[in-house]
């Protein structure tokens, strides 16, 4: 380590041997836990996953578990695109893109406020095949808009905004990043409201939800 300003000798005494021994033991345990938690960020082995499960109380509570957080930023796959949640109010035309209410709907793009909505949309897309969780999340969103925003939803969905390649730009000059072929709908559901109850019915066939052209 680079030389630092060391105070007078009487203040520079090392801690006692007992302190160093106990601290060293705790440090080893802590660093073991932290190393496993960091190492398990991407595609952990079964061994790593099981050992980390036994350390969950410590690593989860203190947020050392990275939980597949994308520190790799991108691998250029379909998972590494922008997501949004969209809600169609009752009586609106599903074919008109501007009639859908989209989340994120607030905040500057660089703010955590904006990013939280994007991550909510990622979660909805990620769990699209998990009927229970996707329905639960969609119901919560629909209920919020019904009870708080005074919007009666008819449909709810998540959409992935696919990316254009360098070759697309080279070939087309100014390609349209919002063109119809740039969208994918991992999850869609019709919303049924009866009194105070909100139910979502997942759509498994495209024909049941009129998809917009944009």
């Amino acid at each position: 380590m680079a030389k630092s300003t060391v105070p007078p000798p009487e203040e520079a005494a090392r801690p006692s041997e007992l302190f160093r021994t106990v601290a060293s033991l705790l440090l080893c345990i802590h660093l073991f836990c932290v190393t496993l938690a960091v190492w398990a960020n991407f595609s952990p082995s079964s061994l790593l996953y099981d050992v980390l499960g036994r350390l969950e109380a410590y690593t989860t509570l203190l947020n050392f578990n990275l939980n597949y957080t994308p520190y790799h930023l991108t691998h250029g796959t379909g998972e590494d695109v922008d997501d949004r949640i969209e809600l169609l109010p009752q009586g609106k035309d599903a074919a008109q893109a501007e009639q859908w209410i989209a989340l994120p709907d607030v905040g500057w793009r660089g703010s955590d406020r904006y990013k939280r909505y994007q991550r909510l949309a990622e979660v909805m897309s990620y769990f699209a095949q998990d009927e229970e969780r996707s329905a639960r999340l969609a119901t919560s969103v629909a209920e919020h808009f019904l009870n708080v925003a005074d919007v009666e939803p008819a449909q709810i969905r998540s959409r992935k905004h696919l990316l254009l390649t360098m070759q697309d730009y080279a070939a087309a000059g100014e390609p349209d990043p919002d063109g119809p072929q740039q969208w994918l709908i991992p999850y869609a559901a019709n919303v049924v409201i009866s009194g105070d109850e909100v139910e979502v019915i997942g759509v498994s066939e495209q024909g049941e939800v009129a998809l917009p052209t944009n």
Partner: protein
Amino acid sequence: MKSVRNYFSGLSAHVGARWTHFWFEPLDLFPLSVLRIGAGLMAFYYVYSHTADLLRWFGPRGLLPIETVEQFTGGMENFRFSYFNFVDVPGAVWTLHIIGALVVLLFLLGLFTRVTSVLSLIVVLSYVHRAPMLTGQFEPVLTMVLFYLCLAPCGSFLSLDAWWHRRRGERVKTTSPLGTISLRLIQVHLTLFYLMMGLTKLAGQTWWAGSAVWWLIAHPESRLVDWTALHAAPYLINAWTHAIVVFELAFGVLVWNRWARPLLLVIAVPMWLLLIPITGLVSFCVMILIANLAFVPADWLRAALGRSGEAHAAPVAA
């Protein structure tokens, strides 16, 4: 056999001596105080960023009611403690939010630092655990630094605590065994982050092929600046992509070398700042740069902040 015994005996003595030097040699507490201010600012921003949509997220009829979150995470059964899980009334949510923001502000200002550091960690973790699916790359780095700052007297300098003790003429330490441990833990943990970031990138073909930066630029709803015109400069995209990976791996290994360290710390600044316009991950990039300060020598930080004479002046309370 004797040579083998001698080898392991020598190895044990050497490792023990290096371990003791690394973790227990007294270090100046000034960098920790600077880290306190940086982490405190980011923690205050993090808490404040929830203000506009607080009830929209955490309210009883919000987008993420407690029951919904528990279905995804298991809630407090899975060690995700949050005081927001105990309240379901808008007034109570707001009260906790305002108190949390005040606590973090006190920590930033360095008042009752030994207490407010722990409370600030609890505050930030409560937001994280209330809705963990909303967290990204920023929160783990922030909570990591906050946790380690709890171990040390990070209010020794640049704080209201320091000012108060100076007024009272109290003489205190400028080093602390826990301070050394705290600083070293931040350094080691950060190094692990860098190595992990570099290695996980290499798990994807795009980083080997040099196209990963393009896939970041091409995000129409995340990027802050539209640099798609760079499609005409594929070599630049390739070079930038490779540079990121090389830098992250190099940092993780070479930052421990006293000759390479200054170069890496300087290179880190444009490296992370240039990621901001293409990823939109402002808070994460800034937090990493703040955490990097753990590697900056105390002398340099003192000189940069005009505090060079303070180390041998009348010390203030730790």
